[in-house]
């Protein structure tokens, strides 16, 4: 079987190296991330790995006040539309969650990441979340 052009492990390794990796469908042109075995639009296996610009704008968000164990609240979760098209979920950093209001929507962000080491995760696997920092 042909190897996947971008596994989730490789996606995480890319983040650690400062690269935001994604996939482009060679059949329909859809660009997406995080990776999937098939195109998230047309289902094609013909995918190639690409570098995505680590920029986007906030489409919606929330401030989590009642959190799962291990997540000190409050914190902001946002959904961001990347400049290359994909939408992704992560944490909005760099502002007081208590000051976060609807004017956050539409704000431009740069995309980074935060690693959760194996010792800190329940499943014992390394975890990662994207982070968004306001740029304007």
């Amino acid at each position: 079987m042909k190897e996947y052009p971008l596994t989730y492990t490789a996606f995480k390794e890319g983040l650690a190296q400062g690269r935001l990796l994604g996939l482009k469908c060679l059949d329909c042109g859809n660009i997406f991330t995080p990776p999937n075995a098939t195109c998230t639009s047309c289902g094609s296996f013909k995918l190639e790995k690409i570098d995505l610009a680590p920029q986007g704008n906030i489409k919606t968000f929330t401030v989590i006040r009642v959190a799962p164990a291990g997540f000190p609240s409050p914190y902001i979760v946002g959904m961001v539309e990347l400049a290359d098209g994909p939408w992704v979920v992560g944490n909005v950093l760099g502002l007081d969650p208590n000051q976060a209001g609807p004017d956050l929507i539409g704000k431009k962000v740069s995309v980074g990441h935060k690693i959760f080491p194996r010792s800190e995760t329940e499943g014992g696997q390394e975890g990662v979340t994207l982070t968004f920092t306001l740029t304007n």
Partner: protein
Amino acid sequence: MATKTFAIGTHSEHEHFSGLTFPGVFAMVAHFYSKKYGIPLPELKKSMARVAVKNHANGAKNPLAHFRKEITMDTVFNSAMIADPLQLFDCCPFSDGGSAIVIADAAKFKKHVAKPVYVVGTGQGSAGAIFRQRDLTRMAAREASVKHAYKQAGIGPSDVDVCELHDCFTIAEIVASEMLGFFEFGQGAAAADRGDTSLKGKIPINPSGGLKAKGHPIGATGVAQAYEIVKQLRGECGERQVEGAKIGLIDTLGGDFSTVAHVIFRRDS
């Protein structure tokens, strides 16, 4: 514990480590709705609170409801913030409960049942994670599923007399009422304000009290919706009876916006 457990319902690799919760997902729906339709958040929060007040009023009339007490809009606004802009009374509870129905071949069993209710349309659909679906006010899988059910039943949304839908959060009822075709997109909040979804409204929604007040025993919830609709179509709902209901629809959601099922019921006229 419950929030921790149900956080497993998010996309495990991409969403889990952001600390996203189920209330968080629907909180993002509310912000998205407010922005998309140009409804200032304080106005939208009032519409959402009216959903909670209405469902509690219905629950107070349901002897099997988890919460049998009426609330006011202030009850909602004075409750704890869970995930901005959702407060505690925008959220359904986790409930203990069970439900069961008996389904039989109508041709064989019709003569044994005094008030038979028929399954006349079904639909189901599934979709990917929310960041793949993008516009959180719409859910292609739900819209396709209910369309299938309507087509099979040979009816449209305006033929439905009573509906039980998945109001896990107040905003969830508003967006569902649009996706099921009862109101134009962006008009669900105004419809809640007008009382269109109350027991005597244009399309009564969640006469049982819904997940909000009847309760949300995860797994039993969908069948409990079927129970309510069957009782409604049989005219056995007492104070919360929707007068003359002949056709009912149920809508059940699972995952965070990812799986959905619909059933349309009809009684003999």
